């Protein structure tokens, strides 16, 4: 049997074959010979997860829009397919042209969460690419990676040739250009990597050396050649409003996690929650204008046929003209029967009216994230939500006909005590109380308050990067306590065993050495760790032991103020000095104001013009649009596509 036959025969046997067959609307890619540079975008999780990811849509669209490059897709196969592929000697292939990964010039991974790292290894190996970068030869692809986890690339740096730090839409094409130049100029792999290191926002791990102190902490980290910069600067999107945004995105046949249009209305967040890595990394806050968003929404509705649009950002409620945006979208989408799903935190009175009018909102459950149970602890983490706020919103919701509310919390936050845990139960009880205050005749039936608790993971580039995670036994005890106090009628309690969070803590603040553990765990059969039925905690622990490394060193250790961190060589905008100041304020349970009330000097102000709130001349919200908005005519459609001609 030839390769295609073998693949076809596997597809007849696996569950969910459409994960591997492609051919979805808007995924037509040019022929292999039509573009000189061949890129395969790899998502280290299943199709259903990957196809829900906005970043993937942006980057595949961007690369395919260039005349000189094509981009195909590849996802982590499920266990049944993987076993079949091994048995039939079928290498991991791209969905579009069914070529093995090793035939591409560039393999690009997006790193969304640490617990997908073992999948990266599995995909490389199945794709016929030498696992470790040092074993790759002249004819092997260049393996690159980006995404949120690239903000501490070290744990996976043995397996990646180059990382993109910051906004992928900015650095992607420059990186591809260099690799295309290599193809044309015949540069060696090493030469190519050295040139890549000179692209701003690119980190090439082979050009840096790490030394360690006797206690295991990092002693020094520096470049080993003149081409590599000592500090790698993160890339920012120059003009977020006008940044590339694909207007024809893939429409999967089968249901995926987010099966709808996602409009990114805003990047960044001004609130400064101290546990939130995204809030620190995606600074400064930038809004997309109403005009741009409406144009994108219309183009996407037309090209995808989706029946739902959701607004995405870290804190959509903060978008400065949210009611106007929603009203405008609803007005334009009414005839097309497209519904708009709302950020649940801002069901204010203005919106309520137009919602009731149009009946376009399904009364599914509302979500609130107080994160911590007491005001003291919320001050520690700088979560600017008060109890009155929350109770008022709950009352509004119950009065508005909702009966189901989700409350998100974290356990194991720094300085957490039993009192804080009891506070969670107290809040849940009060929310339940609000429901019963609404007259029986007017409230919706079937009260359901769901309390979800996840285990806190200290992340790099946050004020808690010095903090220890609670040990597993301590977390277990706390969860046990929560189970007791949350035995409240009408309240459901969801929690997760802390083991995955523990590993996440090891890898999020890991160093280069922990890459050995990753490889060892993979050899021991760890893959698809994010799927609870596949997660093999004991094998991970055994892998740590095999490598002579202690997971507690990474997860449960309080770091000293002046410790050199493996990610310190990256300039992600927010400075270490600022983070330490925030950490000290957190120790005193002192809050930091929202950037909209004034700049807090996080470090972004070093780059003139980047942050609108830091500019003393513009001490005002960046006005995204002049209202009311009535475009003279239909916006030009191919503006986005024409950008890269």
């Amino acid at each position, binding site marked *: 049997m030839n390769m295609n*036959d073998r693949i076809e*025969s596997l*597809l*007849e046997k696996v569950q969910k*074959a*459409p994960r591997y*067959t*492609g*051919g*979805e*609307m*808007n*995924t*037509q890619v040019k022929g292999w010979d039509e573009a000189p540079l061949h890129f395969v975008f790899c998502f280290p999780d299943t199709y259903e997860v990957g196809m829900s990811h906005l970043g993937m849509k942006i980057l595949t669209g961007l690369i395919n829009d260039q005349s000189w490059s094509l981009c195909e897709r590849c996802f982590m196969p499920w266990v049944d397919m993987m076993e079949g592929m091994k048995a039939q000697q079928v290498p991991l292939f791209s969905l579009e042209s069914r070529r093995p990964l090793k035939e591409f010039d560039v393999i690009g991974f997006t790193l969304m969460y640490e617990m997908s790292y073992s999948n990266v290894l599995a995909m490389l190996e199945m794709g016929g690419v030498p696992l470790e970068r040092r074993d790759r030869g002249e004819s092997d692809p260049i393996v690159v990676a980006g995404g949120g986890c690239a903000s501490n690339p070290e744990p996976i740096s043995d397996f990646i040739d180059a990382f993109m730090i910051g906004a992928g839409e900015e650095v992607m094409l420059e990186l591809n250009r260099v690799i295309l130049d290599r193809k044309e100029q015949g540069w060696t792999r090493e030469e190519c990597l050295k040139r890549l290191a000179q692209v701003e926002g690119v980190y090439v791990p082979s050009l840096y050396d790490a030394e360690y102190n006797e206690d295991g902490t990092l002693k020094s980290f520096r470049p080993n050649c003149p081409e590599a910069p000592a500090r790698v600067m993160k890339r920012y999107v120059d003009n977020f409003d006008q940044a590339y945004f694909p207007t024809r995105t893939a*429409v999967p*046949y*089968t*249901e995926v996690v987010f099966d709808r249009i996602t409009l990114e209305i805003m990047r960044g967040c001004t609130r400064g929650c101290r546990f939130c890595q995204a809030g620190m990394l995606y600074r400064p806050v930038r809004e997309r204008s109403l005009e741009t968003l409406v144009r994108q929404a219309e183009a996407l*509705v*037309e*090209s*995808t*046929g*989706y*029946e739902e649009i959701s607004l995405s950002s870290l804190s959509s409620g903060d978008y400065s003209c949210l009611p106007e945006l929603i009203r405008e979208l609803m007005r334009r989408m009414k005839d*097309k*029967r497209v519904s708009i799903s709302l950020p649940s935190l801002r069901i204010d009175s203005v919106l309520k009216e137009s919602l009731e009018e149009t*009946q376009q909102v399904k009364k599914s459950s509302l979500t609130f994230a107080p994160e911590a149970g007491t005001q003291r602890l919320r001050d520690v983490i700088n979560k600017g939500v008060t109890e009155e706020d929350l109770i008022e919103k709950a009352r509004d919701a119950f009065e508005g006909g909702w009966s189901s509310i989700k409350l998100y919390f974290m356990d194991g936050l720094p300085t957490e005590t039993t009192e804080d845990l009891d506070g969670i139960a107290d809040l849940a009880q009060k929310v339940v109380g609000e429901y019963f205050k609404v007259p029986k005749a007017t409230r919706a039936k079937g009260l359901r308050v769901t309390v979800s608790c996840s285990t806190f993971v200290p992340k790099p580039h946050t004020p808690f990067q010095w903090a220890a995670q609670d040990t597993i036994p301590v977390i277990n005890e706390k969860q046990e306590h929560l189970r007791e106090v949350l035995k409240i009628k009408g309240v459901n309690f969801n929690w997760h065993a802390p083991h995955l969070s523990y590993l996440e803590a090891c890898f999020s603040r890991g160093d280069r050495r922990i890459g050995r553990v990753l490889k060892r765990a993979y050899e021991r059969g760890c893959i698809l760790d994010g799927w609870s039925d596949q997660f093999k905690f004991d094998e991970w622990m055994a892998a740590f032991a095999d490598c002579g490394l202690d997971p507690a060193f990474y997860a449960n250790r309080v770091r000293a103020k002046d410790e050199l961190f493996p990610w310190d060589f990256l300039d992600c905008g927010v400075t270490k000095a600022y983070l330490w100041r925030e950490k000290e304020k957190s120790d005193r349970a002192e809050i930091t104001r929202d950037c909209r009330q004034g700049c807090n000097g996080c470090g972004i102000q070093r780059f003139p013009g980047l942050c609108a709130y830091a500019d003393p001349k513009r001490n005002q919200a960046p006005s995204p649009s002049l209202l009311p908005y009535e475009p003279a005519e239909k916006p030009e459609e191919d503006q986005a596509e024409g950008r890269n001609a």
Partner: protein
Amino acid sequence: MRMLGVFEKGERIRHIGHLDIQRAVQRGLRRSGLPVAYSNGFNPHILVAFASALSTGACGLREIMDVTMAREVTETEFLTCMNRAMPPELRLQEARRVEDRHPALTASLKAAMYELRFRDAEQAEKLIAAIPVLMKRETVPAVRKTKSGLKECDIKPWIYALRGEGSVVYATMALTEREACKPPMLLEALRREAGIPEEEEVRLLVVRTSLLGENDAGVFIPLEKL
């Protein structure tokens, strides 16, 4: 008015199930910009029906969708707009405008034509050799999946035509709500006759080539022409 659209379910997407195909067609209709009619109610959906569900794993050359339009549209307009809006694996070949009172497709559907394309020439030869034997039998027992579970049945009267050529078996078989012989049932019977042991895998591609209705003279003709 309604529009009958004859479309193909391509080989590449043959593992997509019927519900997903339905959704893909709905979205295609939305993209097409055609004046389709919507149902009333809280969650309005496009009024589109399908002549018959095609099983996961099979492809179809002439499947039929039945779309209720909100306004008058010509057949050419419908075809052009749809083919701009559909992925290549779901091409439309023909459109036919019918009146609202035109009978529902599911009600007029009588039979379907299939090709069973075998991957292995030797197996195909054995299976094709078994056709005459099978056709001489009085009854051919089979098991049929129904809503209320598995049911034993006799498929012999439901096989209207059966022949083989090369490595392909061509079959015309009953396909109504109450009487239906699906390709796996036929394959089972053929395997039995050919003496292919149960553990031996038979790989094939099932292609439904046409959906048939019956005209006034009692002759099968393509359903969309009825």
